[in-house]
C-alpha cells in the first residue's frame, strides 16, 4: 500500500515537473528573457544572464524533485564543474535530465544541443535565447562558437553519443567532440552520469517511471590535457585516440564496475 502510494505520488510529481519544465521555459521566453535583452548592453552579457537564469531555474527544479522525494541525487567532485574554466565537458547521456543536473551546478555553461530542440514549441525559445550551439550546424560555425565560449572561459557541455544512451548497449562516440578539443584546442573534463533505475531513457514516456525512486549520481572524473596529446601525434590521430580512449573509459566504468 505504501509502495503503491509512493508510486502514484512520484507519478503525479513527475507529471507536474514535466509540465512546469515546458511551461516555465515558455514563460521565461516571453517574460524574463526579453527583459534581460533590454537591460543588456552586449550579446555576451545577455546570453550570460540568460544562462544564469536557466541555471537558477534548474536548481529550483532539482531542489523540488529532491524535496518531494521523486529523485535522489549524489555528486562527486561538483566543485570542479562549478568553477568553469573553458573546457569541453564530456558526459554519457543515460537520461533526459542529465543536462538539467549538470546545469544546476554550472552557472554559465555553453551547451551543444540537438537541432530538433530549436523548433520545440516550448523550449525552442530557451535554447535560442541562451545562444546554445546547434549540433547540425556546419563545422566552421560550430567551431567558431566553441572557440568563442572557450575564450570567454565557459565550459561547453557535449554528449558525444549525439543522443541518449541505449541501456545495456556499448557506448559509441562520434568524433566531433574530439575534433573540437583538438582544434580549439581545449582540455576535456570527463563526467560520468549513472542512475540506479532505468528512467527517462530514449524513447520512453514521462509516465513510465521506475518502481523505486531513482538515484542519480554524477561523478566528475579526470581532466585530459589535450595539448599533451597534440604534442605527440598529428591532429587526426589524436582525435581518433581521444574518441577510442573515452569510449573505452565509459564502457569500463558503466559496464564493468
Amino acid at each position, binding site marked *: 500500500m505504501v509502495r503503491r502510494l509512493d508510486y502514484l505520488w512520484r507519478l503525479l510529481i513527475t507529471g507536474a515537473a514535466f509540465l512546469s519544465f515546458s511551461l516555465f521555459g515558455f514563460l521565461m521566453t516571453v517574460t524574463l528573457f526579453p527583459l534581460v535583452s533590454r537591460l543588456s548592453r552586449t550579446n555576451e552579457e545577455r546570453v550570460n544572464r540568460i544562462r544564469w537564469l536557466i541555471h537558477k531555474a534548474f536548481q529550483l527544479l532539482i531542489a523540488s524533485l529532491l524535496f518531494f522525494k521523486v529523485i535522489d541525487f549524489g555528486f562527486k567532485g561538483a566543485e570542479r564543474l562549478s568553477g568553469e574554466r573553458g573546457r569541453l565537458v564530456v558526459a554519457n547521456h543515460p537520461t533526459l535530465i542529465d543536462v538539467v543536473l549538470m546545469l544546476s551546478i554550472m552557472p554559465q555553461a555553453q551547451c551543444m544541443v540537438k537541432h530538433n530542440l530549436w523548433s520545440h514549441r516550448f523550449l525552442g525559445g530557451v535554447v535560442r535565447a541562451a545562444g546554445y550551439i546547434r549540433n547540425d550546424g556546419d563545422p566552421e560555425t560550430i567551431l567558431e562558437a566553441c572557440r568563442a565560449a572557450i575564450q570567454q572561459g565557459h565550459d561547453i557541455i557535449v554528449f558525444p553519443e549525439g543522443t541518449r544512451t541505449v541501456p545495456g548497449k556499448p557506448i559509441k562516440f562520434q*568524433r566531433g567532440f574530439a*575534433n573540437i578539443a583538438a582544434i580549439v584546442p581545449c582540455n576535456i573534463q570527463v563526467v560520468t552520469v549513472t542512475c540506479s533505475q532505468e528512467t527517462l531513457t530514449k524513447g520512453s514516456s514521462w509516465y513510465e517511471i521506475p518502481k523505486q525512486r531513482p538515484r542519480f549520481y554524477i561523478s566528475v572524473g579526470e581532466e585530459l590535457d589535450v595539448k599533451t596529446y597534440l604534442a605527440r601525434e*598529428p591532429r*587526426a*590521430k589524436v*582525435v*581518433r585516440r581521444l574518441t577510442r580512449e573515452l569510449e573505452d573509459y565509459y564502457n569500463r566504468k558503466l559496464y564493468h564496475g
Partner: protein
Amino acid sequence: MMTKEEIYKRLEDYLINLFEVPAEDIKLDALLFDDLDIDSIDAVDLLVKIQELTGRKISPEAFKSVRTVGDVVDQVYALFPADAPAKVENIE
C-alpha cells in the same frame, strides 16, 4: 609530375597512417565520407597534406565535389599541367 599510381600510393599511405583507415577498405571507388569514415575536418587535413605533396594550391571549393578515392587521385593529377614537369615538394 606524378603518375596516377604514385598519387594513389601516396594517398593510400595518408589514409592508413594518418586517418587509421584499414588498408583493405581503400579502393578507387571507396567513398571517403561513408566507407572510409573521413569527416569534413579530416578532409581539410587531407587537403593540406596534398598541398604539401604537390606544392600547389587546391581550392577547398573544388575539393568539396570530391566523393571517392578515385576523385582525389583525379583532382591531384589534374593539378599537373601536361608535359611540364612540376616541381614536387615532398614535405613529410
